[in-house]
């Protein structure tokens, strides 16, 4: 019996690790606390054509490397109907920098122009299948006013931000969606920090 239980536990772990959305799936809704204390859900975005959801955090050097580019994404793409929502899913007991107060401070210091939500239970990161920071899930709103996942992956292919010829995956994907086309590529991989699970 014990064996069955441990087998189930292993299976459950497997599911927890590999579950998540793929391109074309409905976007799981969430209700998370923003750094201003208010809650944010997808339903708040009635006027958006889509949303750039980015799992990120305070401590990861690769996430930090992208902060200015995430601010620029929101600045440039919000008016085109695609605002940014950043979500921090990290277990703050392992990285105290990633706690709620740290998020408030980081957003203030950097001048984040987008909501920065705390996924305290990590359920949203699991629902999306986020594994690393930063990890983008670009959502697009359909005719039924529901969000689906249109692109999963990296912001661009130049983490260090030194290559002027870089491919800007998210910007290109938004341009494609605004032209009623499917993003190509619709998913990319990148090196990032492991999400610190509880």
């Amino acid at each position: 019996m014990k064996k069955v239980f441990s087998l189930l536990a292993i299976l459950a772990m497997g599911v927890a690790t590999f579950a998540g959305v793929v391109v074309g799936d409905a976007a799981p809704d969430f209700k998370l606390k923003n750094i201003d204390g208010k809650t944010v859900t997808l339903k708040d975005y009635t006027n958006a054509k889509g949303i750039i959801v980015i799992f990120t955090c305070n401590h990861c050097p690769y996430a930090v490397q992208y902060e200015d580019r995430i601010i620029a994404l929101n600045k440039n793409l919000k008016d085109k109907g695609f605002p940014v929502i950043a979500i921090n899913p990290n277990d703050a007991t392992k990285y105290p920098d990633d706690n709620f107060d740290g998020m408030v401070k980081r957003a203030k210091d950097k001048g984040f122009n987008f909501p920065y939500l705390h996924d305290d239970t990590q359920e949203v990161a699991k629902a999306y299948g986020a594994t690393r920071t930063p990890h983008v899930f670009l959502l697009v709103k359909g005719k039924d006013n529901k969000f689906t996942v249109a692109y999963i992956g990296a912001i661009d292919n130049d983490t260090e931000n030194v290559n002027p010829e870089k491919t800007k995956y998210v910007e290109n994907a938004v341009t494609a969606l605004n032209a009623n086309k499917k993003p190509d590529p619709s998913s990319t991989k990148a090196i990032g920090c492991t999400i610190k699970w509880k």
Partner: protein
Amino acid sequence: MIQKCIVGLVLMLCVGLSAKAQTVEVLTFEQLQTRMASQKQEVVVYNFWATWCKPCVEEMPAFEKLYKEYQPKGVHVVFVSLDFKSKHAKVVEFADKKELQGEVILLDAPDYNAWIDKVSTEWGGSIPATLVVKKTGNVQKFHEGSMTYNELVTFIKPLLK
């Protein structure tokens, strides 16, 4: 005479120590692939890490222990740093400070999406991650996430037969 001996001894020690220092070769992904395809040792453990990655640094002693215990059995350990090429000096300094015995290389391949799937389609891109390559039959095993020494031994044991 004694003084001369001491000076000589110190010199020899210095030379000995500097000879042990890591050089940290910089490789492109294609060069790494070529090396994987023509590896000398029967089993090579490629551990993808970075100096800034805390869980990577924390699991390094397990890989060092594996290298020490299993080198006589034909196991080689390569720490593949994913630090930016511009941080090469930092990686060398790190390897020296930690006195790493396993080989350290820096992978200069910033276009991640172009090669992550070639290491393993199972790899989402987070580090640490570990690829083990067995020369005979080109058998490969991949793991994303940290490993303890015991997990690592269990992981590679099937490849040692």
